[in-house]
């Protein structure tokens, strides 16, 4: 039997295009050009995380978490449903790397993803409190709504730090 109150329970894994809203730890592993975006309500201690792959949905609606332009309104709607107010929400993001320079010329998707996330957050009047984007290395992002919305970033060598 597993104890539902066990403090060491595994984080909710957020795969590409997936999202989650709640108070439990969440994690997106191995972000390359993808962005792990978290939004935390500092009054209600609820958080949301999404694993964004591309900047624009171009009207597609089957996987709203996959695209920056649909993912952010989606998280905002879910957080509002949970009783959150926009004024107490803070966003953080990590990812958006360019891992293969040779292929990066016309399609640096990581950079475009990060730009689009910034633009859509601004258009929705959401504050971006921290970001760690770009570079050449992959990142694993963990989000702890239960610990004041702490966000940690880990690299392939295992080193982790808070952003």
């Amino acid at each position: 039997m597993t104890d539902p109150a066990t403090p060491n329970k595994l984080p909710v894994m957020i795969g590409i295009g997936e999202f989650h809203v709640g108070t439990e730890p969440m994690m997106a592993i191995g972000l390359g050009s993808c962005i792990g975006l978290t939004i935390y309500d500092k009054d209600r201690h609820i958080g949301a995380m999404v694993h964004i792959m591309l900047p624009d949905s171009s009207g597609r609606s089957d996987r709203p978490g996959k695209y920056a332009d649909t993912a952010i309104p989606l998280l905002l709607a879910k957080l509002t449903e949970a009783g959150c107010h926009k004024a107490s929400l803070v966003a953080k993001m990590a990812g958006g790397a360019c891992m293969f320079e040779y292929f990066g010329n016309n399609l640096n998707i990581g950079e475009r993803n990060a730009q689009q996330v910034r633009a859509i957050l601004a258009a929705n009047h959401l504050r971006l409190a921290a970001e760690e984007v770009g570079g050449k290395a992959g990142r694993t992002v963990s989000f702890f709504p239960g610990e004041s919305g702490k966000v940690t970033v880990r690299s392939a060598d295992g080193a982790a730090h808070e952003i």
Partner: protein
Amino acid sequence: MKLSSVQMDAMQELGNIGAAHAATTLSQMLSSPVEMSVPRITVVDISQLADHMGEESAAFVVFELQGEIPHGGYIIFYISKKSAVHLTNTMLGLTDPDRPLNEMDESALIEVGNIMASAFLDATAELLGFIMLPSPPALTIDMAHAAIQTLVAQMQEEINEVLLFSTELVCEEHKVDSDIIMLPESTTLTTLIERLENLMKSGP
């Protein structure tokens, strides 16, 4: 795109022929026998990609498939970081299995990847008369999921499922465990399957 079991078998056979050439080449480079697994074709939803390629550190030597289809997808020489050290130690005459990888190793890995990808594509071209040429290589040594995720995001078509086409190559003597992975765009896949079906129809 959905593949029938006959098409899966045909693609597996194609992988067999391509990988067999690559395995022979690797075996010659290492002067030791290299064993090869049966090619595995898995259709993976992008949200589940982390179950197949996790956080482990690995070297990826990546080539874009060019030729008759300009952006045909990717062919990847994948090797875990640990195996990469064993492989380059063998090539460079070194012995320390715990040393960090340096520029010399990176060149060696790119060279092996180049030779393997070319062997794979030569074999499939000979069989199908369909030319796929490798682009110049790109290398990363980092989290496996992050690397494959970046490639999937760069693919031409909007996709929710990835066709992972992989064959393991193992050299026990040098503790090298590597993989050749193909990530075809759907146009490439359609062409490969058409050619394979024609080949089977025309018979021996």
